[in-house]
Every structure is written in C-alpha cells, then in structure tokens.
C-alpha cells in the first residue's frame, strides 16, 4: 500500500475522463476576455460556469478601487488580523456589509469556505446539535467535521423532516443549530425558509443561512432568499461569499447577536490565516456599493435565468425546480454527462460538469450559471448549442417536447 493508493479510485475516474475527452479538473483558459468569454483551446468560448452572477469581475469601478487599494495599502497584509492588526478598510467593509444586511455586526473571512468552517465549527460545541440540510455544500460538511457537536442531516428542503429530527433530540442538553442555504449550488433550488424559520421558532433553535448564491441575485435589495421570504429577523447568522456575485474572493458572516464579536478571539479559521489583502477589500467594497445602487444587475441576471431555464425546459431537458441563476440539466448517466460537457466545449460553451458524489441523489448534471453580463444573444446561442447537443446525444427526443419536465430529487423510498 503506497501513501497514495487510497486515491486509486479517483485516479481511475480521471483516467477514464481523459480517455473520453478533456480533464474537467484541469481546464486551462488561455485568456479571460470578459466576464462572459474566454479563450479556450485557441478559440473564444462562452462562459456558462463561472458563478459570476452579476458580471462584476471586469466592472470599471471595482477595478479602479482595486488598483487604488493596492497602491495605498500594498499587495498583502502578510498575516492575520489577530497578529498583524486590522486595516481601516477591513473595518469599513465589515460596517458596509452589516449595513447592507441591516444587522448589528459583520465579520469577514478570507474565503466563503472559511466563513462556514469558522462560524459553524466555533458556534457548535460538544453538547450542541447541528442539523444540516442533506444537500449542504462541502464547506458546511467540513465545518461539521471540525466541530465537536453531534451532526444530524435532515432531508433536503423538508421542514417537516427537520422538525421531526429536532423532536427526536428532546431531553438532550445543548443548543440546536440549523444550517441551510438560500439557493443550493447544484440544482439551483431555493430553501423553504419561511417554513424552516417557523420550525426554528417553535423549537427554540438557532438558524444559519448560507446565501452564497443568492446575495445580489435574490431579494428586493439583493439580500437573498431570507429577504424574499421575509424572515430576516428570524435568521441568527447569514453567511456568504465575495467570490460569486461580488466578483472577488472572501467570505463573511453577519448577525444581530450582541456577543458576535467574541468569535474573533475563538474562531480558529478567522484567527490563524492571513486576512484579505487591500486589493480584494477595495474591490468588494466597491462591488457592494454597485449592487446597492444598481438594481438593474439583479433584474438582468434573473431575466436571463428565466430565458435560459424556460427555453431548455421547453426543449425537453429535465431542469431544476425553479429558474435561478443556476440552471442544472439532468443527464441520463455519467457517461452522457461527460460526453455532453465535451461536446459543449467543442461548440464553444463552457458549463460545469457535476457528477456524484458532488451532486445530490447521485445525479449527473450539466450545471450552468448565468450572469448579468451575458447578452441576450449569448444566452440564445448557448440555448441553441445545448439543444443541438441534447438532440445529438439523445438526451432530448429529436422531436421537441410539449410539457417541460422539472427535476426534483427522486428518493427511492
């Protein structure tokens, strides 16, 4: 047994992927041309797998703020805020995020992954219980591993099941902490937060919502699915990322709880890693101002999402249950998904290949993300290429379907 033999299965998977086309874990773009196009294999390719929902990566004001910040503050902070101290701009960004959410405090992290890791693992102690949605992101699962609490999964988007599992814990000591997401990253479905908040209130639990994919894309003011559901005051902590709608990198958590700031001296994924560099803090602060003042960005991404979603559903693809900026197409099996993904690239569209176990219910998916920076012409081009590939690979009936099929998790029992 060699040190790496435990990964033999993974090696076999990569080998078979490479044998049937490209290596999805090692895609190299020669140049990024814009928020929606890149050079790939010497040709321009439409980007439909970026999570760049508002298209801010090339926004002029964000770039300007980045350049200014790097000149003023240097290229890095070279340490954590605990050791090297806080820069004024870190504190300013935290104030701005807290204001954006109408919450008392905010804490920024170096990535969204670390925000989940830090918040969840620190809040949930030995006697406590974490109840997480079964389809939670890997960062939530890893946070659970780092935590000393007991971890229970509840059935995806099922408040009844959550209540049932909470009742089962009756009589045990410790806090109950519920963790779910605004929009789920694979199928693009959103959580029934009104019902989950009701369970939280009834059971006296704490509620954490990860709005990674819904910041700036949902809610009247871009505050996500919590805002849409009208339950912001029930949510104890919102977690999010700067790496998607805000076009940079970093993560955050906001809360109204008065002791929130104590986390700064007990949360290891905050304390033992370098803080965000000035350039990133500058661009995120500018991006936050952009999304607060320009509502047309979220309107555009939602309208584009609806356009892509309805056209693909109409064409006969099995799509996720609702039109959000993530649109997932169900493939019949892994091999078809791999072939589909390769054919899309041959024809100039880059989307994400999502295979089990990274997907719920062992689904094989082509996952598309939509951007406000896409043009309608780009959306329509992507639709026609996806439909053509769908017909070619017999994922679609060569004749157009009449009733759209919506994808929900099919549980065997």
């Amino acid at each position, binding site marked *: 047994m060699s040190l790496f033999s435990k990964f033999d299965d993974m090696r076999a998977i990569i080998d078979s992927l490479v044998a049937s086309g490209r290596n999805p874990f090692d895609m190299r773009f020669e140049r990024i041309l814009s928020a929606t196009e890149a050079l790939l294999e010497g040709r321009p390719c439409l980007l439909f797998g970026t999570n760049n929902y508002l298209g801010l990566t090339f926004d002029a004001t964000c770039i300007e703020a980045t350049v200014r910040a790097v000149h003023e503050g240097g290229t890095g902070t070279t340490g954590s805020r605990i050791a090297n101290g806080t820069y004024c701009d870190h504190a300013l960004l935290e104030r701005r995020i807290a204001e954006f959410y109408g919450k008392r405090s905010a804490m920024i992290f170096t990535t969204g992954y670390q925000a989940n890791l830090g918040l969840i693992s620190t809040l949930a102690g030995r006697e406590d219980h974490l109840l997480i949605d079964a389809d939670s992101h890997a960062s939530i699962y890893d946070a*659970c591993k780092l935590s000393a609490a007991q*971890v229970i*999964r509840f059935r995806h988007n099922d408040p009844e099941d959550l209540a049932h599992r909470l009742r089962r*814990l009756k009589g045990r000591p410790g806090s109950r902490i519920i963790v779910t997401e605004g929009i789920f990253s694979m199928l693009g479905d959103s959580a029934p937060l009104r019902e989950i908040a009701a369970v939280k209130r009834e059971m006296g639990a704490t509620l954490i919502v990860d709005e990674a994919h819904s910041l700036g894309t949902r809610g009247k003011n871009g505050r996500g699915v919590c805002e849409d559901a009208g339950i912001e005051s029930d949510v104890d902590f919102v977690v999010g990322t700067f790496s998607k709608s805000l076009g940079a990198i970093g993560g955050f958590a906001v809360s109204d709880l008065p002791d929130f700031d104590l986390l700064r001296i007990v949360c290891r994924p905050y304390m033992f890693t370098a803080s965000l560099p000035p350039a990133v803090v500058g661009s995120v602060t500018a991006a936050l101002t952009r999304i607060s003042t320009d509502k047309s960005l979220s309107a555009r991404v939602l309208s584009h999402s609806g356009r892509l979603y309805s056209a693909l559903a109409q064409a006969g693809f099995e799509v996720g249950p609702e039109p959000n900026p993530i649109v997932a197409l169900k493939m019949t099996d892994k091999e078809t998904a791999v072939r589909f993904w390769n054919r899309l690239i041959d024809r100039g569209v880059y989307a994400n290949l999502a295979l089990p176990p990274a997907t719920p*219910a*062992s689904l094989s998916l082509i996952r598309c993300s939509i951007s406000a920076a896409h043009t309608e012409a780009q959306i329509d081009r992507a639709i026609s290429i996806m439909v053509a590939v769908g017909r070619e690979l017999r994922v679609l009936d060569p004749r157009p379907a009449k009733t759209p099929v919506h994808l929900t998790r099919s549980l065997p029992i």
Partner: protein
Amino acid sequence: MTNNATNIEAEIVELLAHRIPAGIHVSAQTQIVGGLGLDSVAILDFIMDVEDRFDISIPLDRVAEVQTIAELSRAIEALRRTAN
C-alpha cells in the same frame, strides 16, 4: 448473536434493498462503504432511512465509525438504549 441483533440486521438489509441494484447479496459482514457501490452521499441518505426506521439519531461521527452492517446494527442497539 441475540435475536434482537438478527432482527435489526434484517431490517437494515431490507432498507438497503431500496438503494442498491437488485440481485446484490448483502450479509452482516458486508462493507457498507465500498462494498455496495454506493457513493458517500448515498450512504448518508441510507443512514437517514435507518434513523427513521428505528426512530433514533445517528450523528455523523458515529456513522464514520461503522464499516459493516453488523457494526451498524450494534450502533443502533447502543443508540436505542441511550435514547430510552
């Protein structure tokens, strides 16, 4: 092996049958991870079925300790005892 353990194992096997292709033979010594072609998420989904069948909570750290169906059965027995 107690009667109780045999019953629990039989119920586990019955629950598993819903999640694996027909015709796969399952015994008390079957490895749940790697032995049935279930990926990590599918195994955790199966554990939720087990929790519901026996009306217990099986925290994820306990799941990680379990390799075979016999071990899962013993964990269920132990968790049932502490729940009562």
